[in-house]
């Protein structure tokens, strides 16, 4: 002790060691020396601490070495030691197997998130991407293309490339690139078409996260087009009633026999626009006349269904009109307005029943709606009659008041004998 206290040099050395030891202990916990250099490099070697901090793997305690190998506790180039298993840049062709090494291992994944699926790699192998990949095509999507690599976020994070809000954008990176997709023989207008669709509107305009995006119909890891015979299954997940009607209809057998893809024939696949009654018409949006001849039994049925729909639509509109007039005159018609909601529901139901292609079923729904609309129209008329009654009452009162005013004036004149 005496020697240390007295020896200035020894004391300095002791301090230095202490500091190094402390640094060593501190660093050992999140020892990721790779970022010390790679944070300062230029792309494509650049991976900053900020970037990596948002990565879900990093947040769970994994480091660069878990994928790239090497020794993250060492400083500088020593970290990239071949002896410690350093692999350098992971080639695209190695990515699925590398990711699958952990993500397909149920025992391993249970340590982090027991409810996460572990069949992604297996599913990928069944997908179009996976099948082409197995044949040696490295242009196809692999894990890192969709999920990102160093700032990988879980799908529930709205900033993640595979969050439902962003999925279409992610797919379009390749699938809208005509140059890139040359040689695959599929169109590259899906994203553009989807952007015009009612499903896209539901998600972006209404903020409905349950609205379908690419992966909803195509699958994500096992991504493949549903195929002509299976389109109906995909759509029916949400559009249950239409599916039920269609299944029992004449078109199901006909389309199946002709190898036509069910729903897509009339509604399209990517650019599914909001269906209007014009679909049943004879104009540019008409779908029936693409197959049927004018004047035949089906054309007549079409015309009847369209006429029914328009009749109910008109009835609802006229009831609405009269109710608005009543409302703006100050009459209270909230009960009739509620009835209008139900009438509109009937119209929606009738439009669904179209898919049975049976005019009598459509007629049933229309009649139910017409009854309600007629009741509401009557309520509006009653309200207007009440309004007129009130005005008449007012007229009577005002007349009485005028008589009084006249009487008063005359009486005043009388008792004052001449002009005031």
């Amino acid at each position, binding site marked *: 002790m005496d020697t240390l206290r007295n020896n200035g040099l020894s004391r300095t050395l002791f301090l230095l060691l202490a500091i190094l030891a402390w640094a060593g202990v501190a660093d050992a916990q999140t020892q990721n020396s790779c970022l010390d250099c790679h944070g300062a490099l230029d792309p494509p070697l650049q991976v900053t601490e900020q970037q990596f901090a948002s990565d879900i793997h990093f947040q769970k305690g994994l480091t660069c070495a878990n994928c790239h190998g090497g020794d993250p506790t060492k400083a500088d180039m020593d970290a990239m030691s071949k002896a410690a298993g350093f692999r350098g840049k992971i080639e695209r062709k190695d990515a699925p197997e590398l990711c699958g090494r952990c993500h397909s291992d149920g025992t391993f994944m249970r340590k982090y998130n027991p409810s996460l699926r572990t069949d992604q790699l297996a599913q990928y192998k069944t997908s179009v991407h996976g099948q082409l990949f197995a044949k040696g095509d490295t242009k196809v999507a692999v894990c890192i293309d969709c999920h990102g690599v160093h700032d990988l976020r879980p799908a529930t994070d709205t900033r993640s490339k595979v969050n439902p809000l962003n999925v279409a954008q992610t797919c379009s990176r390749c699938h809208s690139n005509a140059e890139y997709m040359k040689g695959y023989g599929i169109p590259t207008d899906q994203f553009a078409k989807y952007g015009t669709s009612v499903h896209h509107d539901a998600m972006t305009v209404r903020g409905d996260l349950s609205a379908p995006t690419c992966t909803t119909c195509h699958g994500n890891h096992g991504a493949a087009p549903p195929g002509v015979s299976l389109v109906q299954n995909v759509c029916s997940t949400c559009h249950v009633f239409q599916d039920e009607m269609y299944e029992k209809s004449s078109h199901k057998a006909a389309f199946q026999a002709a190898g036509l893809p069910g729903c897509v024939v009339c509604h399209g696949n990517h650019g599914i626009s909001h269906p209007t009654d014009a679909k049943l018409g004879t104009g540019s949006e008409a779908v029936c006349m693409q197959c049927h001849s004018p004047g035949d039994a089906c054309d007549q049925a079409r015309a009847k269904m369209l006429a029914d729909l328009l009749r109910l639509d008109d009835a609802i509109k006229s009831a609405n009109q009269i109710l608005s007039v009543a409302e703006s005159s*100050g009459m209270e018609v909230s009960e009739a307005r509620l009835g209008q909601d139900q009438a509109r529901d009937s119209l929606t139901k009738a439009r669904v029943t179209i898919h049975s292609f049976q005019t009598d079923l459509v007629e049933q729904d229309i009649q139910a709606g017409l009854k309600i609309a007629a009741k509401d129209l009557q309520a509006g008329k009653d309200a207007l009659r009440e309004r007129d009654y009130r*005005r008449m009452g007012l007229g009577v009162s*005002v007349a009485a*008041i*005028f008589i009084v*005013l006249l009487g*008063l*004036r005359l009486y005043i004149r009388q*008792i*004052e004998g001449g002009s005031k």
Partner: protein
Amino acid sequence: MRLLTHLRAWLDERFHWAELIGPLKEKTVPVHKLSHWYFLGGITLFLFMIQVCTGILLLLYYRPGANEAFESVQYIMTRVQFGWLIRSIHSWAANLMIFTAFAHMFSVVFLRAYRKPRELTWLSGMLLLFLAMGFGFSGYLLPWNTLAFFATKVGTEITGQVPLIGHSLMVFLRGGEDVTGATLTRFFGFHVAVLPSLTTLLILVHLALVQYFGMSVPPGVEPRWKGSPSEAREMKFFPNFLLRELMAWYIALGILGALAAILPWELGTKADPFAPAPAGIRPEWYFMFMFQTLKKIPAKVWFVDGEVVGILAFGLAGLLWTLLPFFDQAGRGRGRRFIMGAGVFAVTYILAMTIYGYVAK
């Protein structure tokens, strides 16, 4: 009619009825070019009586309480026979009453009827005006619709900006920190009990004072009449002036009925305290000039918060206005001219800011 004669005799034996109403029979009203302004006070009183009657009728069906208020008003408007009429008359008469109260007040200013000895009449009248605006503010919330809810929120928020006592005042008004069902209950209590009793008392005082001092003659006419008393014209209150007053009241009734039938008061949508405020929240028109002024004052005036400056300015203006008669003692030219000028400025300012408030986005 003999019945009336008998009644009179019966009352006279017990209360010296003839002596009591004697002075009333002698009461006269000056007649000159500006006599028509004398009707305004009576019309305001008439409208107040309408409010009391329709208010009591509404009380038969109205239910205070956040869960029930809106629905009870809806019930009155849709299910109760002539409920729409009673409710619309109540809402319209409220607005008309405040308008005529203001007009009455300004006519008194320009005709200088506040001069000695009528200072207390003026004072009681100003207090009545404030009570009328209190009636308007508290009554507006009672249907518990969105507009009313947010207008009350903003209004009480502004009250909270008064220095020192503001926050306590706001909590007192709101029945808590926020506008809730408790506020509704409290406003209901103010509107049907506190304010009516105070107003009735003040009206009696006001009327007694008017009766005691008689009708004031405008400054332009007074000296002329003093000079040549033969020129002074007057008419008896009973029955001549009263009959004319009755005409005015009947005209008011006709207007009210027409407004109720042709422009019924709307129901709105039920207030939802958790929904965001809709765009374009405005107070009723009689608060609009103050509201618009506060909106236009810059955020900071020197080191003081702009809104506080506005509130204090209006408070001060109100106070000085209430003490108006004391600035016009002995009819000295300067005081009188200043008050006339202030009166013109006040009317112009109120009109301009009210219109501005409605026209501006």
